[in-house]
């Protein structure tokens, strides 16, 4: 152990000496590691602090308990007390009573099991004679249950960040190793193998990581605090974050070091020595016409072509982070859209016994009486075809389909209707009933963007609303006023077999194998931002006409059967009263009313989401990633031009003027700036398209499926794009400009030193 400590001390001392004597060259590594540590720090702190914010908001709202019994009477507390005593006696205390009178409890241990057990021992007991009470869980319960569920996402994010950091640091190490090729070749000539070569670099990396931690730590806390404190949210100190923001970047650095070192160690020493030497040589004299031409632009252009691999790598390592900045801004925008959907204050479940009309009328009358203010009912109708087997069907029920004009189709899996090529059909539909509640949801809750007049569905039973999307992509260009058709009846053709195949093949068979009776519908409105991974949206009217069934009934074969109602209140403060009103209805109607309360704190989620400020965090992270971009560029260019010093001195010595040299630098700067701009623009467009594809994949889409209706189009956001473009072009030019400025500071003595050696005394 003592030998290890001795070796460690010695190696760290050596590393300190090397870093100190080459500090200017290591500045970029310091900056890069500070950025990387900042990124890890902000993410890990945010992850932990978000939990604190959530808990604080929940507790500020008074939810210090996991659940309460809604509709309980004073005599019910005995059952509660008995259940508690039984648990105490059996030494399996799974809940504590926070407020006996209000029957508020806090679960212990496995919360879901505790909830089930409590329901069985208390709620079912109270409801034995008649269904009077319901167990309502609070946001605190949801929060505690979900505590472990966000960890996989967090780990995935950390892994992604480690990948980014790895790429950045590897780019920097490659640049540095390339610059020190000669030194490493001498080491290799005298016995230095991969282990030895890496050893010294390892300690240097360790030292830099430790030293850069010192400024990174307060910066991290400052940036993170700014995401919460100005918005009135709590903020804490998290020791785990300190550890992660030191250890993870160090791991990335070491891994990023190993690969280029391995490649170097496989090289031949003499080739590495020659590579170093050649970089000092004047550009190809064969191509040089500097003595004949006034301007060396031609030569410099040729020289840039000669160094094309270096320039390509430089662009890759610098511009890529600017591109990622745009990707981050796009994700932030997608996230903001996702969280923008209004959350319901209360959610009710309805079963087949529920009499919705009666319930709705009850609410209408009593809310006015109690002055509870306005509310919107977001209703979800049960799908009567939920149990239909899509893969194979012979004589059973068929799912509805829609036939739209073939000339309106842009893409997507529509099948041409046999015998009527003017129409093409799909059965991948989300069919919803349209009534006055739906109309309110259209603008206020879903914030659909549409053309036409949806309100026509309230009066005309032969109108529909459709979406332009299918499988979350723009699939058609239907306009208001177009005619579409939906089947209202069908008869199977005799002797036709339907075979078990994939969805669309079976649908094609069904189109051919049945005779359909269609009803024509006029398109009243077209929704342009409907977001669904699979379906096309269709709203059918529930209003009927004179001797004409409503569109919904005609197509679906029944009236809407609502299974879920989400209540959005104008004034969330009245939520408690509203909940009591609903519970009274349930209690009075008894078990047969078919209505139960699922949740009564939907709007709390909005406060929590706002408090977490994830949008701000994504933007901050994007900006930090962008800040990395110039580090690699400046570092690389300064080292590159250092190697060319002798070349420029030789040019001066043979007659090149300061103006000639300026022209060289300007040419370099202009070309690099132009190439950076073009690469950035193309790369940004590419990555946004790629992200859009990824967001629309089944795995990822699931995370956003409850979002506000918006199709994930590849959107280039103008402000981040322009900011990124300007800064990328500017940085590319400045990198060269800085080198020009540094060269200008060289005096004649510096130049002379290149050509003379100290004489032996």
């Amino acid at each position, binding site marked *: 152990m003592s030998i290890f400590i001795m070796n460690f001390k010695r190696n760290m001392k050596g590393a300190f000496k090397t870093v100190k*004597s*080459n500090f200017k060259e290591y500045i970029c590594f310091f900056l890069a590691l500070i950025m990387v540590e900042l990124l890890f720090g902000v993410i890990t702190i945010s992850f932990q602090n978000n939990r604190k914010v959530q808990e604080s908001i929940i507790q500020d709202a008074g939810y210090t308990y996991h659940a309460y019994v809604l509709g309980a009477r004073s005599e019910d507390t005995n059952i509660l007390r008995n259940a508690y005593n039984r648990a105490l006696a059996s030494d399996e205390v799974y809940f504590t009573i926070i407020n006996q009178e209000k029957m508020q409890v806090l679960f212990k241990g496995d919360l879901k099991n505790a909830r089930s057990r409590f329901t069985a021992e208390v709620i079912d007991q109270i409801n034995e004679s008649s269904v009077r009470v319901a167990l309502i869980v609070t946001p605190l319960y949801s929060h505690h249950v979900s505590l472990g569920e966000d960890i996989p996402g967090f780990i995935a994010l950390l892994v992604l960040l480690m990948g980014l950091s790895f790429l950045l640091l590897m780019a920097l190490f490659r640049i540095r190793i390339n610059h020190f090729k*000669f*030194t490493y070749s*001498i*080491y*290799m*000539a*005298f*016995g*230095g*193998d*991969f*282990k*030895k070569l890496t050893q010294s670099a390892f300690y240097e990396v360790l030292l830099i990581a430790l030293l850069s931690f010192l400024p990174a730590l307060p910066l991290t806390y400052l940036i993170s605090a700014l995401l919460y404190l100005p918005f009135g949210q709590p903020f804490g100190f998290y020791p785990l974050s300190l550890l992660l923001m030191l250890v993870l970047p160090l791991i990335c650095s070491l891994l990023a070091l190993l690969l280029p070192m391995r490649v170097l*160690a*496989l*090289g*031949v*020493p*003499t*080739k590495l*020595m020659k590579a170093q030497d050649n970089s000092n040589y004047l550009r190809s004299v064969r191509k040089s016409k500097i003595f004949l031409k006034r301007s060396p632009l031609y030569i410099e252009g040729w020289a840039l072509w000669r160094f094309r691999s270096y320039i390509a790598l430089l662009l890759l390592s610098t511009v890529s982070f600017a591109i990622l900045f745009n990707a981050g801004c796009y994700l932030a925008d997608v996230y903001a859209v996702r969280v923008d959907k209004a959350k319901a204050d209360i959610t009710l479940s309805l079963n087949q016994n529920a009499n919705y009309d009666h319930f709705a009328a009850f609410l209408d009358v009593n809310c006015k009486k109690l002055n509870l203010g306005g509310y919107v009912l977001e209703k979800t109708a049960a799908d009567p075809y939920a149990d239909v087997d899509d893969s194979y069907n012979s004589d059973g029920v068929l799912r509805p389909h829609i036939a739209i004009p073939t000339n309106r189709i842009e893409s997507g899996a529509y099948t041409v209707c046999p015998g009527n090529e003017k129409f093409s059909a799909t059965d991948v539909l989300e069919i919803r009933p349209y009534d006055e509640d739906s109309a309110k949801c259209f603008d206020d809750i879903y914030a659909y963007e549409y053309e036409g007049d949806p309100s026509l569905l309230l009066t005309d039973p032969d109108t529909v609303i459709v979406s332009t999307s299918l499988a979350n992509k723009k699939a058609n260009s239907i306009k208001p006023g177009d005619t579409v058709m939906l089947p209202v009846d069908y008869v199977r053709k005799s002797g036709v077999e339907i075979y078990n195949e994939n969805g669309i093949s079976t649908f094609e068979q069904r189109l051919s194998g049945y005779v359909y009776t269609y009803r024509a519908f006029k398109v009243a409105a077209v929704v342009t931002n409907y977001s669904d991974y699979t379906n096309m949206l269709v709203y059918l009217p529930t209003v009927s006409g004179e001797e004409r069934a409503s569109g919904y009934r005609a197509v679906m074969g029944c009236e809407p059967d609502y299974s879920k109602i989400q209540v959005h209140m104008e004034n969330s403060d009245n939520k408690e009263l509203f909940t009591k009103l609903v519970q009274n209805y349930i209690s009075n109607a008894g078990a047969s009313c078919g209505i139960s309360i699922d949740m009564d704190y939907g709007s709390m989620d909005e406060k929590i989401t706002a408090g977490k400020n994830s949008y701000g965090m994504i933007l901050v992270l994007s900006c930090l990633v962008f800040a990395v971009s110039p580090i690699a560029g400046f570092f690389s260019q300064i080292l590159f031009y250092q190697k060319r010093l002798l070349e420029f001195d030789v040019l001066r010595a043979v007659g090149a003027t300061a103006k000639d040299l300026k022209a060289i630098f300007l040419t370099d700067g202009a070309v690099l700036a132009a190439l950076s701009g073009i690469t950035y623009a193309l790369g940004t467009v590419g990555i946004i398209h790629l992200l859009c594809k990824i967001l629309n994949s089944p795995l990822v889409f699931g995370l956003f499926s409850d979002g506000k209706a918006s199709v994930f189009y590849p959107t280039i956001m103008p402000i981040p794009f322009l900011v990124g473009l300007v800064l990328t072009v500017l940085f590319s030019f400045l990198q060269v400009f800085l080198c020009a400025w540094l060269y200008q500071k060289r005096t004649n003595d510096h130049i002379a*030193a290149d050509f003379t*050696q*100290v*004489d*032996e005394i």
Partner: protein
Amino acid sequence: MAILEAKDLIKLYVQAENKLYAVNRVDFSAEDGEFIAIIGTSGSGKSTLLQILAGLDRPTSGSVKIRGNDLTKMKADELSRFRGRFIGFVFQKHNLIPQFTALENILVPTVMCDREEIRYEEHLKKLIDGLKLGDRLNHLPNELSGGQQQRVAIARALINRPQVLFADEPTGNLDRENADEVLELLLETRKTIGQTIIMVTHDISIAERADKIYRMDDGHLYLFRDADGKYRRNSYEEAAEMSKVIAGKTPDSSNQ
């Protein structure tokens, strides 16, 4: 006993349509403790041959064995470690690391081979005194004269007491007196540790002191003067015949 054996060495450089045989089917061997000089005109391939024999470069084909270890078959790390233990090399252009002092440059091989205790040994002191570097140890290479840099390079090559020392013009930048002193030091080291020395030189007076002299011409190597002191006439023509270079026919390029 042969400490070094090289067989059928070829080093081919290809640039566009031009092919250049820097080393052209060279066979070479050196006995334990021998001092061999290689002379030849500039551009004849001497340095390239030396680098291949020292394992600093890979031949296009052929084999090099030192103490029975085939350098051409070794992996990169293994070869590096082998060089550190058995081989010392004095480069023609010194190749000192510019950011290290003279002493640090000398001690590079000891660090690479984990033999840093040598810093405190008599051997280092002897080298420094013998090469007259005592007052220049803390200077950077760009603060040293060409001759001083060369002496630092020599000290670096000898610090690990290699069994085979390859020297590419080690006295190139030195005056007569210093050149003789350096040569005496090398020969003394050879006597002490039984080192084999293979030296490229333009200095015929130094070459004369070698046990054997080889001459390199256009990539071909042939014995110029043997261990008995006999000079061979028309040696170039014989070497060309031996390597079977006939107009239009290239040598075998297997074992690349």
